[in-house]
């Protein structure tokens, strides 16, 4: 961090996040979702960072059944609140409430200003222990990094917590990833074990690939629990490769996601559909100036419980500021 401290003010606390408005029509029922997800990151000294993200949303939808007006369901929740201690070149100690490090979606793609689709993958509940957050400690970092290969890891232990803002299951687990810079290929595996109630084991794997000199990005995950499993594969293409990010065409990004879940036994706790489900999502994202992005998608879901169409459109503004004005 020496370089960071060479320039005065580099470590000013920041506030970031996203503000969005999403509409989702699922099987003919439309929900409107205004959402704010603020993130605060405050460095302390040269080796500590305190960071937190929250979510505030107020989904509302027509009452239906001949009734006038809308019903809403206000929600305010703390997504994580953690202290990061940079213990060494290879290890960071994380304490507090943190995103459960299982597979990739939860930690990397769940912010509304990052994900290509409004909805999380169908198998998101596998391995994330219900709340997707853990309360306890985590050790993570870069095991090694060379020009040919880098490896990173995360291991955690979570205590059981029923506090409304710090809800978590007693669990442990971890994730390891290998990244090959030359081919831009990442391979990883995850493991989680729920330690409360009937112990459950979860396993996952992910493959991300970004072919060099193309705008293509392919991401995939597989996760398996005791009673269900599922995978998703997502491909997006950044048209900015052709004509630049500021051109009309270059602002668009077509996205395709395929997902499938399988169920062997009923289990409402894993969050997967009650019956085996297949879904294909077609999306078109548009990046506008001033950190505004429009996401739109059409999804077709196939299930023995019934097929359905899902239409979603959202506009998200990403903000990123110092917490106070400087010189």
């Amino acid at each position: 961090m020496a370089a960071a401290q060479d320039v005065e003010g580099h470590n000013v606390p920041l506030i970031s996040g996203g503000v969005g408005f999403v509409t989702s029509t699922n099987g003919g029922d439309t929900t409107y979702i205004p959402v704010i997800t603020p993130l605060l990151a405050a460095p302390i000294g040269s080796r500590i960072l305190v960071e937190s993200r929250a979510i505030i949303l107020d989904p509302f939808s027509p009452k239906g059944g001949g009734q006038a007006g809308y019903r809403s369901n206000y929600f305010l929740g703390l997504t994580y609140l953690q202290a990061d201690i940079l213990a060494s070149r290879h290890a960071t100690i994380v304490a507090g409430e943190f995103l459960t490090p299982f597979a990739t979606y939860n930690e990397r793609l769940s912010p509304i200003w990052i994900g290509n689709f409004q909805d999380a993958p169908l198998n998101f509940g596998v391995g994330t222990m219900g709340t997707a957050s853990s309360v306890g400690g985590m050790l993570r970092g870069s095991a090694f990094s060379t020009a040919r290969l880098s490896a990173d890891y995360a291991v955690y232990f979570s205590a059981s917590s029923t506090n409304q803002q710090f809800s978590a299951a007693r669990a442990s687990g971890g994730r390891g990833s290998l990244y090959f810079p030359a081919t831009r290929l990442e391979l990883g595996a995850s493991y989680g074990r729920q330690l409360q109630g009937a112990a459950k084991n979860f396993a996952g794997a992910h493959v991300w690939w970004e072919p060099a000199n193309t705008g293509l990005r392919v991401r995939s995950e597989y996760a398996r629990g005791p009673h269900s499993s599922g995978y998703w594969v997502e491909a997006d293409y950044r048209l900015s490769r052709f004509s630049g990010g500021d051109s009309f065409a270059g602002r668009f990004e077509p996205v395709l996601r395929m997902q499938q879940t399988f169920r062997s036994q009923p289990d409402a706790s894993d969050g997967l559909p009650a019956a085996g489900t297949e879904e294909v999502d077609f999306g078109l994202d548009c990046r506008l100036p001033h950190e505004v992005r429009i996401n739109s998608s059409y999804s077709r879901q196939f299930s023995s419980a019934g097929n359905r169409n899902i239409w979603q459109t959202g506009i998200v503004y990403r903000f990123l500021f110092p917490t106070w004005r400087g010189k």
Partner: protein
Amino acid sequence: MKPSSVLLACLGGAIAMLPLCAQPRAHSAASQAPPAQSGHAPAQGDSSPGEQVFKQNCSRCHDAPQGFSPRISGTILRHMRVRASLSEPDERQILIFLNP
């Protein structure tokens, strides 16, 4: 044909076709480079080690912010070092890239 077979065929076909039509022009680096508001955005075609590290690590998940104050670049990097498990040298390279 089962729906899953159709979907898999669609996905496989799309993925197979995309690289074939990917013939990028000379334009490249600057579109993914983080244009700091201070005007420190690197010149087009610049391929510093920091830029390479940025493209290999940060761009895997998200596009670069369109601009931010250089006063928070260190905080952003510390956040990303934890979130993306960046190595200390990679973190330093990206920080230099953001603040040339």
